[in-house]
C-alpha cells in the first residue's frame, strides 16, 4: 500500500505522473472512452486553474482525484448516478464469510470476467474498489478523495467486494450450466 504522499512541487511535477492513472479511474467512472477523455481534460483544466489553492505539502493525489470525482458528479453522467439513492447503511462493514474461501473464486476468473463484475457494480462501490485495489490508496486517502468518512469507505469496500464475489459466483454457475447442456 502506498503511503499518503504529502507532496510539494510544480503542477507539472505533481500532475504528470498521474495522467494515465486518472484516465483509468475516469474510465471506470464513466464506462466510456469519450466521456473519460472529457472528464480528464476538464479535471486537468480545473486543477491548473485551482493549483493556487492547493496547499503545498498536502496530499496532491487525493486533491486532483477529488477534482476529477467532483467534475464527474457535476457531469451529465454523474448527475444521473447521483439521482440514484444510496439506501444502504454505510456504517456497516460486512464480515468476510467464514469457511471455504470463496474469495479464491475471483482470482481464478479471467480478467474479462473480473472487469465485467466490476463494471456491473454501482458507481459508489466501483470507485472505492478502483481507488483501493488499483490506485492503492489508503482508506484515509479514499475518504479525502470522495469526501466521505472512513467508515463509509470500509463499508462500501466490503459490500462492493461481496457483490463482486456473488456476481462472479453466479457467472460461474451459469457457465457450468451451459457446459453441462452441451
Amino acid at each position, binding site marked *: 500500500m502506498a503511503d499518503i504522499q504529502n507532496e510539494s512541487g510544480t503542477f507539472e511535477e505533481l500532475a504528470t505522473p498521474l495522467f494515465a492513472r486518472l484516465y483509468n479511474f475516469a474510465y471506470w467512472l464513466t464506462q466510456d472512452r469519450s466521456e473519460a477523455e472529457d472528464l480528464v*481534460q476538464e479535471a486537468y483544466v480545473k486543477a491548473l486553474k485551482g493549483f493556487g489553492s492547493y496547499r503545498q505539502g498536502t496530499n496532491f493525489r487525493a486533491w486532483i482525484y477529488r477534482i476529477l470525482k467532483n467534475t464527474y458528479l457535476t457531469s451529465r453522467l454523474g448527475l444521473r448516478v447521483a439521482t440514484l439513492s444510496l439506501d444502504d447503511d454505510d456504517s456497516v462493514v460486512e464480515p468476510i464469510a467464514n469457511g471455504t474461501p470463496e474469495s479464491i473464486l475471483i482470482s481464478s476468473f479471467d480478467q474479462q470476467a473480473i472487469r465485467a463484475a466490476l463494471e456491473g457494480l454501482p458507481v459508489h462501490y466501483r470507485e472505492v474498489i478502483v481507488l483501493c485495489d488499483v490506485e492503492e490508496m489508503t482508506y484515509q486517502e479514499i475518504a479525502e478523495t470522495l469526501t466521505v468518512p472512513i467508515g463509509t469507505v470500509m463499508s462500501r469496500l466490503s459490500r462492493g467486494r461481496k457483490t463482486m464475489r456473488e456476481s462472479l459466483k453466479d457467472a460461474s454457475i451459469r457457465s457450468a450450466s451451459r457446459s453441462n447442456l452441451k
Partner: protein
Amino acid sequence: MTCDELHGKLMRYVDSELPASELVEFESHVRICAACAAQALGLLQTKTAIRAAATCYVPSREFCLRVEPSIRARSKPRWLTMRLPGLALAVVAAVLLLASVTLVVDRSGREREFTEIADLHVATLASSNPVDVVSTDKHTVKPWFAGKLPFSFNLPELQNSDFKLEGGRVAYLERDSGAQLLVSLRKHQLSVFIFKTEPRGYLLPHETITSTRLGLHMESWSEDGLRYFVVSDAPASDVHDLSALLRKAARP
C-alpha cells in the same frame, strides 16, 4: 486471537490498514491456522487479480495530442495577453505544461513496456520449453503463427549470418498477442517480439529506440503498423545487427 476475531480484521489486513500492534497478533494466528491463512491468501489474490484486471484503460495517443490544443483554445483572448504579459506567460506555461504531460506520460509508458519486454525475455529463457514451434527454418516458424495472431510479418534469411533461428511462441504484452522469436548467437539468446502498434501505439514513438537496463540491450522500432523489439544480453552491436536484418526483411 480467535478465528472470528481474525475475520473481522481480514479486510484491513489485505488493505495494509491493520495497525502494527494488531498485525503481529494477526500473523501469529495465520501461522498456526490453515483455514484463516487460506482465507487471507484468497483475499490477497483477489486484490491482485482485481488490480491486474482493472488497470486496463490507457489514454489514446490522439487524446494526449488533443489536450494541448484544447488547452490553448481555452487560453485568454489575445488582447488580454498583450495587456497582461504575466497572464500571457501563465497561459503559455500551461500549454507547455500540458504538452510535457503528454511527453512524460509517453516516456513512463515506454519504460514500462521495456521492462515488460525484458521480463518476457528473461521468463522465456528460464522456461524449460522456451518455444512452442521448434525450428531453424523460417518457412516453418512463420506459418506456425498463421491464425494465432491478428497480423503477419516477414522474417529474414539467417543462414548466411551468425544468427540462428531457434523457434517461436505467442507472447502477450498486457492484453495483446504478438510473436516472440528466439534467435541464438554464439552463447547468447536474443528475443524478437512483434506486436501491432495499435491500439497502444501511443506509448511507442515511431523512431528507433535503444536502451540498456539490467545488463540487457534492447532496440525497438515501428514498421508498417508493427512494433518490433529485439532484446538480449548479447552486445548492443549484435542486437543492432539482428534489428537491421529484421528491418530489411520487413521492407520487401
